[in-house]
């Protein structure tokens, strides 16, 4: 069984980010941050919620073979950096049986997927991953 120690509240409090890719926008200067933060580079502490766009471009990626324990059954993982409307997000690239067909600049969309299971009897953790718009 997977080796996890993620509690329900710890997962639950990130649902706006994991489920909706919700970042924040500074009310004063308009900068957008993902993950959310408490103070903007301009010094302002006032933010509004800002869901990131669901389509973006792949900037760079790697195929990871040596994975943490809870991802053993899913390896290899494709880890990529994606530009979503000017904001860079790291995450898994999925639905790509042949990662050699990936290349920087291709279009990807955000998908909602199971990330892992928590412990022997625990919850299933969902979150965002990225899928190439054209098959690969």
């Amino acid at each position, binding site marked *: 069984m997977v080796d996890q120690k993620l509690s329900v509240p710890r997962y639950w409090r990130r649902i706006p980010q994991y489920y909706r890719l919700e970042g924040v926008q500074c009310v004063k200067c308009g900068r957008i941050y993902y993950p959310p933060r408490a103070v903007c580079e301009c010094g302002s502490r006032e933010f509004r919620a800002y869901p990131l766009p669901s389509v973006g471009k792949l900037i760079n990626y790697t195929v*990871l073979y040596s994975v943490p324990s809870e991802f053993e059954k899913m390896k290899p993982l494709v*880890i990529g950096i994606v530009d979503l409307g000017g904001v860079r997000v790291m995450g898994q690239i999925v639905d790509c049986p042949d990662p050699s067909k990936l290349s920087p600049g291709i279009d990807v969309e955000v998908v909602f997927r199971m990330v892992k299971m928590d412990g022997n009897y625990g919850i299933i953790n969902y979150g965002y991953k990225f899928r190439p718009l054209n098959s690969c």
Partner: protein
Amino acid sequence: MFNTTGVYIVASSLVQGGRHYEKGLKELFAESFLKALDNAGNPGVGAIYVANAFAESLQDQGVLGAYLADYVGLRKTPAIRIEGGDGSSGLAFLEAYNMIRSGIYDCVAVSGVEKMSDVTSIRLNKALATITDYEYEGFFGVTPAAISALAMKEYMSKYNYDYEDMAIWPVKMHERGSANPLAYMRRKISLKDVMDSEVVSEPLRLYDTAPAVDGAGTVILCNKPLKNDAVVRVDGVGVGSNGTYIGQRSELTMLHSVADATNMALRMANTEVGSVNAVEVHDTYSILGILALESMGITRPGETPRALSLGQLDPGGRVVVNASGGLKSMGFPGGASGMYELVSMHMELMGTKPFDNLNAEVGLVQDMSGFDLTSTVILLRRVS
């Protein structure tokens, strides 16, 4: 800070990195701590700073300071554990340095200790993921190896290098390590060995990765030299930070925390990078060693693999890089890594075998947590 007192490394010791199944944190710590203390002539230490990153995840042990001090009979000596991921040792050194510099203690010990072989590698990967922004990186399976691989790919494409060009790092490190009796990997390797090794995170291969080891190292710092012969003085310390979430970075080929820490250390020592003869960089992955050198200003951006293959950073040159063989050869003992670099540099400056031909006077030691999260740079000078 009153800046009234000099700080000297008066002794050091290292347990050879390896799979010390028969020893726990206590035994590894005691072995290096007591040896360093003996080498220093047993001065009383006012405090012990312990660097360690993963004791909770790998040994289920907290409160490491008291736990370790008690074992060496120093129950009443304050012992403080410093955790800064795999950059813990540099940060512990900074704390110890501050305590002496401000006149609070005459002598203190800084020890790094870590036991990586208590768990399988897949469990270790999970512990290593804690040196990422876990909620947004580790949660999705990202590890420091994956981040380093992304940086390596960006570097290769930006400066037009093939993987074969990058493989010079492990080849050179193994060459140096083969002459270092304290190295874990003491075998020279060929380009083919690197190219044939398994892929960890494409394009990063096994030979780009410093092998996880158990280990411990200690330096004793005092406010005056304890012996009359050559000693090593701490002339500058620097620290820099650059946030956690890697997605937010616009580029991955410059380690800003390293650049800031270097500038701070050089400023404090009132010297320039050109005066440095020896450098030890934190090469948990070969690309991190390359980026560290460029961020410190030792080599120009994009130049390092070429400079290495031309032998410009070899012993005998203007500046020698990782004469010890780096963490690639010495092994990667988590939070104790920086102590391996510090003790190696102490030996290099003192001309201790096998470093008796380096003739280095000024050395820089760079330690770092994860990928450019928090870095320390320490400038050491041999004085008579």
